[in-house]
């Protein structure tokens, strides 16, 4: 076993001082050491996207980053989406459009979508499908996920007008 390292993770505006082996993935550190179990782990080899979080605003697979590598970066997880008790528009849209069933992939889709819409508020449908093809869902058939994200995108465009 390698020596544990003391690191600080900045997650959703909170500093978490944790001690981890270098091999601990960011997803495991978030879940086990920070107690933030909203980030689910579906494959641990970077394909399913359930563990997607935002690192400096960009969606990344937290199972493919070691926790020690995340020091000094701003991390956001599903637990940080809602603010002041109000759901993030994507969270509400996922509920309204029945964009989740078992919910296991949902955190990943929410973070993928949140990061994407923040970077590209005007993203067109084709590009949005390309982005959403990054993550796997086994329940919904994706139709309602796409519908939910488009609804939030369109509302954002409307508001910006």
């Amino acid at each position: 076993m390698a020596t544990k390292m003391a690191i600080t993770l900045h997650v959703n505006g909170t500093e978490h001082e944790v001690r981890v082996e270098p091999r601990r993935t960011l997803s495991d550190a978030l879940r086990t050491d920070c107690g933030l179990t909203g980030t689910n782990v579906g494959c641990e080899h970077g394909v399913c996207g359930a563990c997607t979080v935002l690192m400096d605003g960009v969606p990344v697979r937290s199972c493919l980053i070691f926790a020690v590598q995340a020091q000094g970066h701003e991390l956001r997880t599903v637990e940080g989406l809602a603010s002041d008790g109000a759901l993030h528009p994507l969270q509400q849209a996922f509920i309204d459009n029945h964009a989740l069933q078992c919910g296991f992939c949902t955190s990943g889709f929410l973070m993928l979508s949140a990061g994407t819409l923040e970077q590209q508020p005007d993203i067109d449908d084709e590009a949005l499908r390309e982005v959403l093809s990054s993550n796997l869902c086994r329940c919904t058939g994706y139709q309602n996920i796409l519908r939910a994200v488009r609804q939030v995108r369109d509302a954002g465009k409307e508001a910006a007008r």
Partner: protein
Amino acid sequence: MKAGSFEWHPARSADEAVALLAEYAPQDGRVIAGGQSLVPSMALRLAFPAHLIDINGVEEFSRVRVEAGELVVGACVRHAAFHQPVEPGPLGRLLSRVVHDIAHWPIRQRGTFCGSLANADPASEWCLVAATLGARMVARSVRGTRVIEAADWFHGIMTTALADDELLAEVRIPLLPTGSRAGFYEFSRRAGDYALAMALVAWRDDGGRMREGRIGTGSIEVQPRRIATAEALLDGRPASAEAFAEAAAAVSAAVDPLEDFHTSAGYRRDLIGTAVRRAFEQAGD
């Protein structure tokens, strides 16, 4: 699916990175950049590095620039950097098309161009680009810096000319001259999957005739390569369906396809012909 133990050594400069590599390479140490291929193989316990030299914090590696007619891609430039053309010419536009076939959006935010070259997966899009366009790989170590031509870089499946203590510091790709046309096509089972066949073609348009034609294949053999017999068919000919089809047939005839349980050599041979023809058909300037 958890990686085995390793020691982690973050480098803050290129010099520090090569120094760490010199120290740890003999002890199963290796470089981690984006880690989007390395970490899964560690998770599956197919790779057991004892030391990881992390170059994500090396500022100078994150730059992409044009210098002396070449696009210079630093060791830690992410795939995502290419979503928008990194230079205004045909090469920048070509790369911005190719990047969409590389894995998925979040993977592209983290994985790196040079990492793909160092990993040398036969199905890597960037390896195909490097092989077809004649990129030069700049390897650094405490022993010095050397430049490796694309033709000498690939040594079979996931093997390169890079020595254990060397770091791929940058890749230099010659810019495509004005008037170039280039096309890329890959065939995969699903969006974002590894290609079963892919082709990159480029030529200079000389008043309607093709000059300096390049045809590269990927995901077909143990490494990407240009097909000289097919390229020879292009010179001086108009860019026509007939020329494309002949070139495609020549490629199919020339390759020695990999075979696996899912994909026969014959099917791959067939696919690469289609991929070459479609790369031509979809070529843009």
